């Protein structure tokens, strides 16, 4: 009992540190620096501590400190309770969605079977969709409670967009679920041990639809109409300043990490290295590290591989964000209901047929 508690606590602390402590602040820097490098410029590099600039990494720190000490503003006519609540509602699902994502395999360590996932739920991926549905409230409430026309329009657009894309996103995933026959993400991860059984080879269309829908769900740039700067000042968080504004930002970054993790788990072999199975890793390491050391090393390799893949997809999302221009609102809606939804339905039925026939 106690050991279970310690194990799950350790996993929660690990994921929380990686997400909130490492990814959230660094992604702010990555976004700036990557856009700079892509646009043939230098990017932030002046902030220094004792003459040490760390390639502009301290600019993230400067931003954080500045926003913490910035005036926290609530408009006079706003609904104060919901105005304060909204950023939290936006942030919490983004953090807690990581609970079901496996970042490594199942290993025997000191006689305990350790499964590198916080909660190995039977409903698996559906949990992420549930949380994505709840994340809508953050934006909707933020838009409504500010009592500003820009915010309200942003909130309405956000809710419409997120609801619509949730449908196509859900349907795009079902193909993968049919193929692997499980909703449990650990099962799906374990099934991709063989390189040629990776989700991207079995469900390429599903991957494209999921990626599109996930970026739309995250409201990042080709789909950032809820916060379209040229139309709606800053959309649903127009009236937010200081730390609350940063919480929306952080939620966006964390959701990006979650999307990358899900894509990695479902389509790109989770924690597996191509052509290397977990058993092979164990047998290699047990040659010099003993059974426990081998398990620990294999775990470390798994985690490293998983986060390397996650980093790649974060890079990909950043590249998409700094390459494509924004869609119009009607284009976004048309794309969802007239392209992605039928496409995912076709994909789903073809997958079902093939699985049935084989």
């Amino acid at each position, binding site marked *: 009992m106690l050991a279970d508690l310690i194990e799950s606590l350790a996993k929660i602390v690990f994921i929380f540190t990686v997400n909130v402590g490492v990814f959230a602040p660094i992604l702010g820097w990555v976004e700036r620096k990557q856009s700079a490098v892509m646009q043939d410029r230098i990017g*932030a590099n002046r902030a220094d501590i004792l003459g040490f600039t760390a390639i502009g990494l301290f600019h993230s720190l*400067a931003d954080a400190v500045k926003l913490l000490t910035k005036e926290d503003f609530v408009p006079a006519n706003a609904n104060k309770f919901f105005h304060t609540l909204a950023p939290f509602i936006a942030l919490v699902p983004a953090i807690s969605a990581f609970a079901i994502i496996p970042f490594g395999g199942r290993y025997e360590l000191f006689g305990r079977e350790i499964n590198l996932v916080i909660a190995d739920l039977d409903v698996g991926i559906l949990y992420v969709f549930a949380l994505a549905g709840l994340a809508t409230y953050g934006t909707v409430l933020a838009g409504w409670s500010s009592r500003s026309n820009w915010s309200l329009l942003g909130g309405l657009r956000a809710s419409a967009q997120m609801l619509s894309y949730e449908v196509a996103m859900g349907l795009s995933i079902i193909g993968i679920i049919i193929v692997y026959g499980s909703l449990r993400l650990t099962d799906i991860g374990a099934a991709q041990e063989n390189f040629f059984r990776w989700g991207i080879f079995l469900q390429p269309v599903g991957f494209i639809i999921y990626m599109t829908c996930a970026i739309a769900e995250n409201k990042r740039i080709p789909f950032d109409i809820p916060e379209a700067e040229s139309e709606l000042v800053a959309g649903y968080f127009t009236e937010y300043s200081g730390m609350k504004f940063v919480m929306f930002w952080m939620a966006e970054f964390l959701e990006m990490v979650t999307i990358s993790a899900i894509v990695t788990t479902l389509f790109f072999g989770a924690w597996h290295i191509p052509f290397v199975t977990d058993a092979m890793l164990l047998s290699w390491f047990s040659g010099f590290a003993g059974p426990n050391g081998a398990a620990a090393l294999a775990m470390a390799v798994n985690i490293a591989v998983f986060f390397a893949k996650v980093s790649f997809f974060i890079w990909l999302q950043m590249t998409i964000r700094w390459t494509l221009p924004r869609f119009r609102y009607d284009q976004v809606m048309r794309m969802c209901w007239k392209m992605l939804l039928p496409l995912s339905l076709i994909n789903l039925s073809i997958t079902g047929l093939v699985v049935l026939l084989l």
Partner: protein
Amino acid sequence: MGLKLSRWTVTRNLMGGKAEDAGPERLLDGSVILTRLEAAVNWARKYSFFLYPFVTACCGMEFMSVAGPRYDLDRFGAALPRFSPRQADLLMVVGTISHKQAPILVKVYNQMAEPKWVFAFGVCAVSGGFYDNYSVVQGIDTLIPVDIYVPGCPPRPEMVLDGLLLLQQKVKQERWTDWPRGEAPVSRC
């Protein structure tokens, strides 16, 4: 604590009220901890300006060139334009401000959250430039407090960067007792 800013009530938590009733901070002015903290916060503020580009005229082109890859405003940490005044720190007034536009500018200034700075970009914003006539505001400092004046019609990107460096120097030496700066001196125009 609330301070009435035209129609918005502003809550202040960290800034500690108006400048005149900041007694304890004045007493502790020389204290080590407060100065160190102040220095750290000022360091952060100086490298993290979120701009509000209030672009009304041809200087906007030069503003784009400053922000673009050639001169790259992002090097100084001032690259993120926020089009909501709540989130912006630095109000860049770029271009001619006519009397019709003056109330809008004042409103935007008043809507900005503390701490805030104002940057007069180009001759028209500094003094009205050669629009010495009935319709143009003769310098935005007749409406709102301005921190940095950058002359030029339009200014070279280097001049703007000079101004930004000067503003960084100014922010570095600021005291918490300088804040909040509050309402624009002209609230109706």
